[in-house]
């Protein structure tokens, strides 16, 4: 497969996402496929940001685990990432400010220190001093050369991006781009080229944008939200485009208000949606049950991030399954669906609106940070402007001669034809107390056990009937595989690549992506899994929630679990390695590795304002009276190389047994 991966590293506020965007859009317009992942932190400025842009001639399903070109925007970034650049790759940085210690660089990697001052002389004369953030454009120019995508398309993208800022800004930026491009051309070898540019222009979209766009297509009229990473960009898109779409966008005072407003709008008869992250959803759960018992169509998007609690706000994780499944007390029908990728997020959203209306119930969409915030190029056909809109059984008119309208009529299907408030002669009350067909409370003086039994059964029948029209999951990859990987959400991209690579390497591997969680395709999944030879779940969490869920629904346990829960998303090679370990029957090793110990040292130094020091040597010691083997670390002064401190880290627990400054 023809592809290249660019990494851009810097601090928050360095404007690095804009640069990545220019690059990605250029490729997207050329007809290449792009998948980008931004590993950022939640503070506004300063925190480390690591943006990976993977470009391929064929579709790329995850950010991969390669690194061909590194753009380092500060010194720290060199130290963290230089060693990751593969042979044949290149490292690009501002040579005026940043140094690259050759010992950090692998063999066969070009080091391209851009002499920013020199190459921008002319531009400075013409436009005045260049802001630091603009220097990124120079680097992008260099990358455009190294990645073999040419100058033309990036220039056009810059032209569009800065159109509202006037010609001077456009010219300056294109000037910077060109300077970087020319410098690289003169001083470096291309890292990738020979692309076939199909020129099919593909939108470069995040999962959140896809959901918002789909909501518009599906006829959503009301979107309420309270800002929370990683769901906020739905709100931002909705707000930015509100006058175009006609969707009323309401930022509320809290998430309780958010969902209750959305339900109110749903009651009134508009298609309504709300969105939040795990913590905000925790505040919404009571209302989900209300929508259930009132049989109100409403969509709620829950975007998972690193938890528990405030947790790791800008990190991806898939650990909210139980929260969503367990949302609200009691039992009531609802659809829980977890889209697997960006195109699927579009389809799922459209379907969500239709099923919500058809079955008159809340739909909970589980997304995750990676899916919601990473952008990728998507075929434009994946975003049809015209979609099916099915509002279900609606009572448009009711005559008193038809008898009393019964909002919650006990029907075979479980669905009772719905009259939208405002319709004459169909008046009723939406009650969160349980009620009979006519919406008269059965909770108060009237409790009649058989009535309660029947309304409960009516509601639950919706789950049975809805399941019939949901597409059952299917195995992807070779039918006769030796290994079956099981996953959900954004992890499916990595799993797909891992499975394909494993198959290519001789271990036939297929995979199963679970999309519908409630109702669940128990029959089909049981059939698939009971035939699978080795079943391994792959999830970004500690407790393998989906594997547990599947066991609940099918009784079938996995043969092994691949988990990652350190804040970073899974990558194909990591999955392959873990799967191999499982196949070989190895116990998962939880010890602190040397690389990890080193990172822990860096963490300690950074959090104790000791950035003048750095780890230089790590040795492992088995018996030392600490109750566990340890990593003994020699730490030196960065500049002088003189001994700075020693640190002892527990190999099992990871605790800092001691940190001793040199005298």
């Amino acid at each position: 497969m023809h592809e290249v991966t660019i990494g851009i590293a810097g601090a928050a506020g360095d404007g690095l996402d804009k640069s990545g965007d220019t690059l990605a859009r250029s490729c997207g317009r050329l007809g290449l496929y792009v998948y980008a992942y931004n590993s950022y932190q939640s503070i506004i400025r300063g925190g480390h940001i690591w943006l990976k842009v993977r470009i391929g001639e064929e579709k790329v399903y995850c950010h991969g685990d390669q690194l061909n070109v590194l753009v380092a925007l500060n010194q720290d970034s060199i130290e963290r990432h230089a060693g990751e650049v593969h042979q044949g790759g290149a490292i690009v940085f501002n040579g005026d400010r940043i140094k690259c210690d050759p010992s950090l660089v692998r063999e066969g990697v070009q080091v391209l220190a851009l002499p920013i001052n020199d190459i921008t002389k002319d531009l400075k004369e013409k436009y005045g001093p260049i802001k630091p953030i603009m220097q990124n454009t120079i680097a992008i120019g260099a990358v455009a050369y190294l990645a073999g995508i040419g100058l033309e398309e990036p220039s056009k993208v810059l032209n569009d991006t800065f159109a509202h800022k006037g010609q001077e800004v456009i010219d300056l930026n294109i000037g910077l781009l060109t300077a970087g491009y020319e410098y690289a051309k003169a001083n470096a070898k291309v890292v990738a080229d020979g692309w076939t540019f199909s020129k099919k222009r593909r939108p470069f979209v995040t999962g959140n944008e896809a959901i918002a766009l789909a909501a518009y297509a599906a006829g959503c009229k009301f979107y309420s939200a309270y800002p929370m990473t990683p769901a906020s960009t739905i709100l931002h898109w909705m707000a930015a485009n509100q006058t175009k779409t006609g969707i009323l966008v309401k930022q509320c005072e809290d998430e309780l208000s958010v969902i209750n407003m959305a339900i109110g709008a749903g009651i009134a008869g508009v298609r309504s949606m709300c969105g939040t992250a795990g913590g905000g959803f925790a505040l919404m759960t009571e209302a989900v049950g209300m929508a259930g018992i009132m049989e109100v169509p409403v969509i709620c998007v829950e975007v998972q991030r690193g938890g528990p609690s405030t947790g790791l706000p800008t990190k991806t994780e898939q650990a909210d399954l139980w929260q969503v499944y367990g949302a609200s007390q009691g039992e009531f029908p609802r659809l829980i669906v977890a889209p697997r990728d960006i195109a699927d997020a579009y389809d799922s959203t459209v379907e969500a609106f239709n099923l919500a209306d058809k079955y008159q119930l809340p739909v909970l969409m589980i997304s995750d940070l990676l899916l919601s915030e990473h952008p990728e190029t998507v075929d434009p056909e994946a975003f049809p402007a015209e979609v099916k809109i099915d509002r279900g059984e609606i009572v448009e008119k009711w005559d008193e001669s038809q008898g009393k309208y019964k909002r919650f009529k006990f029907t075979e299907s479980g669905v009772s034809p719905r009259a939208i408030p405002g319709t004459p002669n169909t008046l009723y009350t939406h009650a969160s107390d349980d009620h009979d067909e006519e919406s008269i409370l059965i909770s108060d003086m009237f409790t009649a056990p058989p009535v309660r039994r029947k309304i409960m059964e009516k509601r639950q029948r919706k789950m049975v009937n809805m399941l019939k029209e949901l597409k059952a999951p299917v195995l992807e990859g070779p039918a006769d595989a030796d290994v079956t990987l099981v996953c959900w959400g954004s992890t499916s991209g990595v799993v797909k690549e891992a499975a394909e690579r494993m198959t290519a390497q001789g271990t036939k591997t297929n995979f199963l992506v679970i999309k519908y969680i409630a109702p669940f395709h128990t029959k089909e999944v049981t059939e698939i899994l009971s035939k699978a030879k080795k079943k391994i779940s792959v999830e970004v969490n500690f407790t393998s929630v989906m594997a547990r869920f599947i066991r609940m629904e099918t009784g079938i346990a996995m043969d092994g679990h691949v988990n990652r829960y350190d804040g970073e998303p899974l990558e194909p090679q990591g999955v392959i390695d873990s799967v191999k370990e499982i196949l070989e029957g190895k116990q998962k090793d939880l010890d602190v590795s040397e690389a990890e110990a080193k990172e822990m040292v860096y963490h300690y130094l950074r959090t104790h304002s000791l950035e003048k020091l750095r780890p230089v040597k790590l040795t492992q010691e088995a018996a030392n009276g600490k109750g566990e083997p340890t990593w003994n670390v020699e730490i030196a002064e960065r500049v002088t190389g003189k001994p700075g401190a020693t640190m002892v880290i527990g190999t099992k627990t990871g605790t800092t047994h001691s940190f001793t400054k040199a005298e």
Partner: protein
Amino acid sequence: MATVIELPVETYKGAVDPDWCPGCGDFGVLRSVQEAAGRLGIKPENLFVVSGIGCSSNLPGFIHAYGIHSLHGRAVPVATGAHLANTDMKTVITGGDGDGYGIGVGHLLHAMRRNLDVTYVVMDNQIYGLTTGQTSPTTTKGHKTKSTPQGNIESPLNPLALAITSGATYVARGFSGEPKHLVDTIAGGMAHKGFALIDVFSPCVTYNKINTYPWFKERVYKLEEQNWDPSDFYKSIEKSYEWGDTIPLGVLYKTEMPTYEDGEPNLQKGALVKAKLGADKNVFKELVEEMI
């Protein structure tokens, strides 16, 4: 504006009879809401009556209208959503002091500063009725309740002062024992454009043995009879603190201000619920183009 065709109070007779304790103040409030709606000629199918949970919050089940009997404390956001989705209907929120000033006070405050065009009738019995008699945010200091057997040690909040300072544009008080005046007050609120908060003394005859009908009867008087000028912001705030031997009823404060609906761009072309579904092809294309 079309001439109003008044409707008789029976128009709003609910499917079931209220199950409140005999003598409960809420009966009077229910009837006043029905009369007020009739006076304004609001057809039942054009009326949303939204509540939370509590004895008082059972009201939507007892009135012929589109009722929403939602969650404890959440009447305001549910009503906001329903109202914004269908601004062609009149939205009246009805509920208790615990529901509105206790668990729900955050929503209330924010709705008031938005000057949302809804009417909120609070049946203030200074107690939690449905849960059998605990302290509420308006319970008098010292009052011995099930949850404060030694006497309540918290100062009650002043709903009227809160409403005025938060941005409500029609702030009034009624008393279930003064039904005619109450109808006027509620009808005034429903006719008002903007957020109307009407705090109604609605005695709980079962659990509040202090703030009873006679207790109020001895104290209340009507601002309207004293030619009160409800347009003065600061004087109204001051008036809202009158509490003791004399307690004012009526409209304390009233002003005209742009509503939330006035400012919301997507409400300028009529009710959302009547808008066509689905994307405009050109707009959609433009939106996708921005992503390329």
